[in-house]
């Protein structure tokens, strides 16, 4: 029962966060400089009447709170509005492009975890040896290198010089390798650091000493006991990092000419296509919040103490 009510509370929190981000995005877009109506008409030929008519048609002559209420009402009915440029329904645009972005985000996340945990563990085992130093330098690179930069380096190496991998496009699994690597390196860097540090800490704990004293093999001590304890902070980092991954797709999808929601919002911002911007941000917020709820719930799987505390 306690677990159920806790879960329910988390869900309510999640909905509130989504609503909050909705309000925030609406405010920011409302306050953006520039008149969306002027950018839609040809300024050479537009008459003042034409401008006013279009403003009315879009409901942009209404006060802020009316505009928001209208938008929110439509949202509840599943109407995300239409693109002001192509008059396509926003929801349809998102449904078409979201899967590609989710796939990219997921593979980058998997890559981050695989690279991050592997190197993190190696680094912890060789704590303060030269292997550890090199891995830490690699992690530092991963964290500090902007994704567009590592993306271009990958293109030059594996695309142009070696010609092993396709440089652009979203067809086939091969096109996924370089973008997810470029995007995943940042997360990998963070996870390497998290896993290494928490493992080094855990290794000093008395229960590890006890395990070793009992003569349990080093491998079991490492992977069954130390790593498991070290994973909790790594999972938290991953949950928070999903936001950065989603934001990173804006850049990475453009660099690798992939289809996806990041590219859609990038283009929409360029032409001030407000309904599209709002729709995509709302969806990203939903994905972000959902993942973090899942992360919260997954703690209890990894750590029995949290489960019992409920």
């Amino acid at each position, binding site marked *: 029962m306690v677990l159920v009510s806790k879960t329910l509370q988390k869900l309510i929190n999640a909905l509130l966060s989504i609503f909050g981000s909705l309000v925030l995005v609406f405010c920011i877009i409302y306050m953006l400089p520039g008149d969306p109506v002027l950018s839609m008409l040809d300024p050479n030929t537009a008459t003042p009447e034409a401008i006013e008519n279009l403003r009315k048609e879009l409901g942009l002559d209404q006060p802020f709170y009316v505009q928001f209420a209208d938008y929110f009402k439509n949202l509840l009915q599943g109407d995300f509005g239409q693109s002001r440029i192509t008059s396509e329904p926003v929801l349809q645009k998102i449904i078409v492009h979201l899967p590609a972005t989710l796939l990219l985000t997921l593979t980058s996340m998997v890559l981050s975890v695989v690279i991050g945990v592997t190197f993190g563990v190696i680094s912890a085992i060789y704590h303060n040896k030269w292997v550890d130093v*090199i891995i830490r330098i690699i992690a530092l690179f991963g964290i500090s290198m902007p994704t567009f930069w590592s993306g271009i380096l990958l293109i030059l190496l594996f695309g142009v010089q070696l010609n092993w991998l396709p440089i652009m496009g979203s067809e086939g699994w091969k096109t996924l390798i370089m973008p997810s690597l470029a995007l995943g390196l940042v997360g990998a860097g963070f996870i390497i650091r998290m896993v290494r540090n928490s493992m080094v800490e855990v290794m000093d704990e008395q229960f590890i000493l006890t395990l070793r004293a009992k003569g349990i093999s080093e491998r079991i001590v490492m992977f069954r006991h130390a790593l498991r304890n070290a994973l909790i902070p790594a999972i938290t980092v991953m949950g928070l990092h999903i936001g950065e991954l989603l934001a990173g797709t804006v850049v990475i999808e453009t660099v690798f000419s992939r289809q996806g929601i990041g590219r859609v919002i990038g283009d929409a911002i360029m032409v001030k296509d407000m309904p599209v911007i709002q729709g995509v941000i709302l969806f990203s917020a939903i994905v972000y919040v959902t993942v973090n709820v899942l992360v919260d719930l997954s703690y209890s799987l990894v750590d029995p103490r949290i489960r019992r505390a409920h």
Partner: protein
Amino acid sequence: MMGFKRSKSIFFTLFTALILVVSGCSQSSGTNQGAQTSATDNTSSNPVSGGELSYALATSPDTLDPHRSGLAVSVRVFRTIFDSLVVQDADNNIQPWLAKEWAVSEDGKSYTFKLRDDVKFHDGTPFNAEAVKYNFDRILNPETKAGNSTALLDPYESSEVVDEFTVKLNLSTPSSSFLGNLSQAMLGIVSPTAAEKYGDQFGKNPIGTGPFKFVSWTENADIQVEKNSEYNWGPTSVENKEQAYLDKVTFKIIPEEATRVGSVQSGQVLAAETIPPQNIVSLENDPNTQILKVNTLGLPYTLFFNQREEPWNNVDVRRAVLQAVDVDAILKTLYFDTYERAWSPITPGILGYDEKLENSWKYDVDAANKLLDGAGYTIGADGVREKEGKKLTLNYVDVSPNREKRNDIAAIIQQQLKKIGVDVEVNITQDYLTVIYQNADYDLYGNSQVNSDPNALRSLYHTPPENITRKGLGGTSNLELDELLEKGTVESDPAKREEIYKEVQKIIIDQAYVIPIYVFPYTVAASKKVDGIKFDALGYPLFNDAFIKQ
């Protein structure tokens, strides 16, 4: 612990491998340069039919409806799908295309076109006088939400279908640029049946009479067109008037420069447009690629003084800045001399372009300083000139994103003008519509335009009409210039027009209303396997003659 030792050696091996690969990169780029002499140019080979050309575009078209579009990138695709009534050749003469011949009425207010009777749209709809009438009336119809085509079609009023293949177009006033504008792809002829059927979604389902038929458009990925095998009405601007050699053209949308260049270098696409200057030289030296370059026609990239306010309403002050901007240095630093310098408010190749303006003034800091001294501006303690307690500042507004490195031009000019004591404040904005055209809150602002006729000068240099909300660029108001520009619009004798526009250019430069900077070259990097890509009068690519060598 044995396992860990092994992983140490694996790690070491990987690390060494990485270093080898990276050093391999620098070696192979060295060989590329060495091989340049062995590269041979086989431009004279015979066309081969078949194959697919992949062509990377830098940005995505806004729509494939030529009447609604407002972007140059869309025109690159339009030219495959749509034909026009007439075509403009390299010498600015108008030649027949879908129209066989035409006659202009005495008063210059109506054009009667005899149309080809053997042309069909891709959907089978016959091309005839009704179709032409439908097209131009469609642009006038506010429901179409027409884009740039509206301005191009001006002063069109109505059409009359004389017989099945004769159509008469009526204008409200005579216009010498009208015929030339009809050659532009944004006034291309669309299928009336398809336009009715798809309504505002026609831009996703374009149908014309062009050498290629639309196949698909996957947003942010590619646009595919395939050969129209019935085509045999090619314009004079291409050699192959029959069906195209290529089976298919795929326009790939690759916004990132490095990716676009890399995709040609690796052979993953056969051609890519808009090559950054820093890559042009290295691609020219690459044995597998060639660079195609054509200067775009119209108004070059030009910096406009906002002449509405002090001190920029003073010709001496403007002249001083004009002479203190070292354009050659800018072109060398930013574009490695791959862009040509502009000397006139119009580009070479436009009717009336005055070559005499080339080198007609020199970069001369001393002369500039003298002009400012004469205008009463004295150098203050901080090195900035001032007059009656007011500092000589220049609010230089430019647009983000940094297209063609224009923001960097602003930064260089900021440095250059320090030499004459002008304090330049650079403001980069995304919202140029409000800053420039609504509030006119700037002293210097740059702009360029693709166009085929010198009449384009009118919208920028003529005193703006009252009924339009937009504030004209520069705010030039010169009665003599107004009169000449009005004459230029209606004069039908090309020789007289040339004289008029030479005079116009002279006034604009003498008055230093603007600082012309560069003529934008449209650049394409293509694999040496590709041959026959041509460019029309405005600098847009044509694929009628293109083929892929075996």
